């Protein structure tokens, strides 16, 4: 073993340490987010939410996690064994990779890539594969319908999402998340989200749809498909899907914060704190939306993407290119 490998400067070491940190970060944030979600839901609905398990119900997500681990794992008869068990793992694995290029702080870079943005988009696109496998592998009609919805939804929303991201990348002239963040300033008017609100809006809508959150939670639409693609998953199988959903939310919020809200930079005291504050602000917005709106219908969801968001994103992109061309 070369001494190089043990030093912190070696990329492989950084990667392993980074991955471990990411796992810890994802787990912790998942737990916190579950608590935040249930608390916000409670307060929106004029009730306290989790309250008695631990102070302010803080232990609630931990208790839930332990319970889920302790549940019997059931596999339905006729399910495809490999696909059935691969799906939850596949849901979780790419998300952790997505965390690596996220620009938490200039000094805190587990993996600094000049194509970080592409990596995130590629791996988050992989997430839908797990939904298909889960829906197909569990030999359940509701699951199958959920999987079919997931595919159509993912395809429809990837397009405007990419276009919105592209407009920012063109403005910044880079695909490196650190560079894009660095091009923005600490003050709100220096953020791309303020300079290009249309792209930010499109990105937010697509982000909600990409993470299958209400009002776009069609693959698991509770009142229509009982639980959609994860109908048959019990115990930790379900828990992993649950965790992956929250991890996905953090990723898209992190990307949104980096691309549109100036990342770690703030008017004062730049650093990771600002990044987390912005991420949590977007997360709160997503949670808030979930507890306000009804669910859209499937064809409306596709119409929204193909008839509104995609053309708008193209127009936005064209404008950005023109302005960039004029400006220099």
């Amino acid at each position, binding site marked *: 073993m070369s001494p190089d490998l043990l030093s912190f400067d070696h990329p492989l070491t950084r990667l392993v340490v980074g991955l471990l940190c990411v796992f810890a970060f994802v787990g912790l944030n998942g737990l916190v987010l579950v608590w935040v979600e249930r608390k916000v839901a409670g*307060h*929106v*609905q*004029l*009730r*306290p939410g989790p*309250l008695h398990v631990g102070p302010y119900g803080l232990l609630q997500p931990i208790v839930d996690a332990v319970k889920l681990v302790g549940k019997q794992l059931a596999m339905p008869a006729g399910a495809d064994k490999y696909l059935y068990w691969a799906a939850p793992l596949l849901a979780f694995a790419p998300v952790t990779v997505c965390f690596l290029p996220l620009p938490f702080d200039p000094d805190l870079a587990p993996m600094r890539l000049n194509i970080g943005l592409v990596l995130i988009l590629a791996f988050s696109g992989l997430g839908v594969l797990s939904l298909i496998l889960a829906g197909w592998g569990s030999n359940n009609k509701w699951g199958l319908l959920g999987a079919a919805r997931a595919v159509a939804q993912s395809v429809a929303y990837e397009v405007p999402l990419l276009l919105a991201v592209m407009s920012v990348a063109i403005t910044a002239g880079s695909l490196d998340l650190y560079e894009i963040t660095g091009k923005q300033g600490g003050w709100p008017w220096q953020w791309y989200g303020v300079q290009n609100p249309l792209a930010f809006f499109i990105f937010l809508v697509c982000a909600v749809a990409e993470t299958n959150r209400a009002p776009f939670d069609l693959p698991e639409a509770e009142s229509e498909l009982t639980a959609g693609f994860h109908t048959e998953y019990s115990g930790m199988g379900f828990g992993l899907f649950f965790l992956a959903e929250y991890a996905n939310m953090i990723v898209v919020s992190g990307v949104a914060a980096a691309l549109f809200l100036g990342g770690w930079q703030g008017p004062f005291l730049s650093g990771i704190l600002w990044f987390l504050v912005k991420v949590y602000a977007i997360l709160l917005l997503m949670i*808030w939306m979930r507890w*306000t*709106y009804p669910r859209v219908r499937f064809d409306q969801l596709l119409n929204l993407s193909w008839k509104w968001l995609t053309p708008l994103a193209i127009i936005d992109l064209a404008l950005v290119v023109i302005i960039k061309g004029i400006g220099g």
Partner: protein
Amino acid sequence: MSVSALFEEACTGLKSLFVGLGITGKAFCQPQVTVIYPKQEVDNLSTFRGHVELVGKEDDPSVPRCVACGACVKACPSDCLTILCPVPAKEGEQDAPVAMGPAPQKGSKTPGAVIVDFSLCSLCGQCAKTCPVDSLRFSDNPYMVALDRKEFRIDLMARLKRQAEEE
């Protein structure tokens, strides 16, 4: 539909979404309506009907007013009440142990046992309404739970005695 009308519609739609967010956001800041149950309780429990119970006499609260007429048993739609009285002994059987029979029994003016099977009851109040001496009323015992369904056969005489002792 013209493009401008389409955009107008989209704008009203978007506005309605923001209005919705505003309402839930406002609710977020409002005081909660929850009654923190084991610590607090709702203030109108006294009007809630629990299972039926016996009413004691004015002078002796441990003895029910019941005259063992059996009217409530007959009125009950789901046969949840049982009133047992000593059966008057037949000729020549005076020494036999006293048997219990369903009310009414000749010569018996007080019940030997009053049992309600709460798990059959629909809380309709027909028994209380029929009672000629107003010996039945609804209890305020709404938090009953049990690990065995046999526990819902409640001995009302014992309950009355316990209540009388507590007072």
